[in-house]
């Protein structure tokens, strides 16, 4: 495809896709994990002030 440099070019684009995809996946995973934990706290203290702390907004 790119002559003698095909492997080098594809390795670079592959590394970029892997790292950036990994970063995006990690951020999405982290968000879902945090939201679940916050929901657990919110459920365990239902109605209490802990579930809606304005000071941390």
């Amino acid at each position, binding site marked *: 495809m*790119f*002559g*003698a*440099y*095909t492997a*080098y*070019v594809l*390795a*670079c*684009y592959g*590394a*970029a896709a892997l*790292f*950036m995809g990994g*970063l*995006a996946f990690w*951020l999405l995973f*982290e*968000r879902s994990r*945090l*939201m679940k*934990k*916050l929901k657990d*706290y919110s459920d365990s203290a239902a109605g209490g002030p*802990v579930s809606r*702390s304005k*000071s*941390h*907004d």
Partner: protein
Amino acid sequence: MFQFANPTRFFSLADRVQPWIAVLSLLLIVTGLYEGLFIAPPDYQQGDAVRIMYVHVPFAWLSMACYSVMTLAAIGLLVFRHPLADLAHEAATPMGAIFTALALLTGAIWGKPMWGTWWVWDARLTSVLVLFVMYLGLMALRQAFDEPSRGAKAVAVLTLIGVINIPIIKFSVEWWNTLHQGASVFRLDGPTIHMDLLRPLLVSALGFTLLFIALHLYAMKNVMLRRRLEGLKKREAFKSEGPMFKEGA
């Protein structure tokens, strides 16, 4: 700037614009990389290996841009005590490390066919490696403090000290005799790259920059949620165990 000092207001706006920025960034990246891979002509000296430029150069630029964002955040924290500054700093640090790692990795892969070696200790490569170590050091330093606010100040101070490396990276190819080529885009006398090669590079770089902005906004909110969770945990622990030091004890 200070009207967005309220995190709730800031994240309300960020949540609305962030998906649009992400979509636009992906469109630009796909366009730029497609043009770079299949439409742009090969370089007269480097041949098709020049196509590595369309990922290597944006990551190299972003590795420095990310540190510049962290420097502004450090100033925002130390001078203005802006409540979002430390969130922005903490969120940007691992992203900067990833961009720098990618710049080093793609640079090494480009260096092997062009220079005949993966690595040389020339000024540009070494100063970028120092930047990568700086990012790792900043992440480690933040984790080393039990009190988050003290850790935030420490990393802000270290960030301001480390910013000296950014002009060193930029001008290393002029100050020293390096194997790495000199500047060919941001020059006072204009770019030395032909427009057929430059256009996909700029499109790709703009796309990756917008992707960085979108991911950074997302990561900032993650940091805020994590801190809220830690605050709740501490409050729960305080409620169940009581204060460590009681009056009169």
